[in-house]
């Protein structure tokens, strides 16, 4: 069995990653298609890593949390061409608070 990376993002993100050799890619611009795509990749035995844009990830946080509870696929969130989402709370921040019990500056 081969292992693969999948990408979910806007058209430019998908074009970029396809040019770099990641072919399992879904263009999505709203939560419905993003959710469908992510659930599909989560079912796909080949996919071990899903790259998704922060913008889409923010809209389907519940689905991401649900899938993240399993060991695979690992989901990684990246900025799109418009850059980092300023209002986005770093998901690691909550994790740190839960594990350590205190808020840390800078995370």
């Amino acid at each position, binding site marked *: 069995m*081969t*292992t*693969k*990376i999948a990408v979910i993002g806007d*058209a*430019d993100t*998908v*074009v*970029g*990653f*396809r*040019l*770099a*050799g*990641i*072919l399992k890619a879904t263009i999505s611009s709203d939560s419905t298609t993003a959710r469908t795509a992510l659930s599909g990749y989560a079912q796909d035995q080949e996919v*071990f*890593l899903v*790259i998704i844009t922060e913008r889409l990830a923010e809209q389907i946080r519940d689905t991401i949390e649900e899938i*993240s509870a399993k*060991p*695979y696929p*690992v*989901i*990684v969130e*990246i*900025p*799109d*061409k418009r*850059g*980092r989402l300023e209002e986005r709370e770093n998901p*690691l921040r909550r*994790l*740190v608070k*839960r*594990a*350590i019990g205190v808020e840390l500056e*800078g*995370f």
Partner: protein
Amino acid sequence: MAESTEIIHGIKPTRMELIALKERRKLAARGYELLREKRDALVREFFAILSEAKKLREEVETTLSEAFSSLMEAKLVEGEMKLEGLALGAQSFLDFEVTTRNTMGVPVPIFRITQQEDQPRIHYSLAGTSSVVDAAAQKIRETLDKIVRLAEVEASVKRLAAEIEKTKRRVNALNFVVLPRINNTIRYIELALEEAEREDLFRLKRVKALLESKTTSELG
């Protein structure tokens, strides 16, 4: 937190049980120490990996933004249609390997992207494309390595955090539930044994007094 007064039910206040309980207390105390050490080591590892995750995320943000600028440039030079066509017709010569490593008993993923041997580094048709496309693709390929590494590290952070939480719960359960309960039961048995001893002593004295009065009356 109020000191718990709960005891283990269904234990008879005997010396045998007391000895067994003291053994159990020793074991629980040892477990508590070990788990606390594990928790502390996990926390140290967690912080080390957390700062790496932070650094990597910043790197990904920078490289990715550069990659997108090249991509936008390629889009301008080649036109959106052409670029999309190239992307659609792309082939992949990359291998993606997934293995697992153990960090303090926590399995964490290791991701590796490798170029297939004897295959071109370019994944799209070269016919009539300009170097801007190559530059963009190259940039995204570089970012991809960083993204994969970031995914790996962030997944490790998540798994370590979950393990810390689990260990913390067990440490607290031992400290605030299991050990106090054992201690309370030990105290209860010790009190019961002392009470029984006092009763025995009293009974003994009573019998002795009775016997003495009997002897004196018989003699008299």
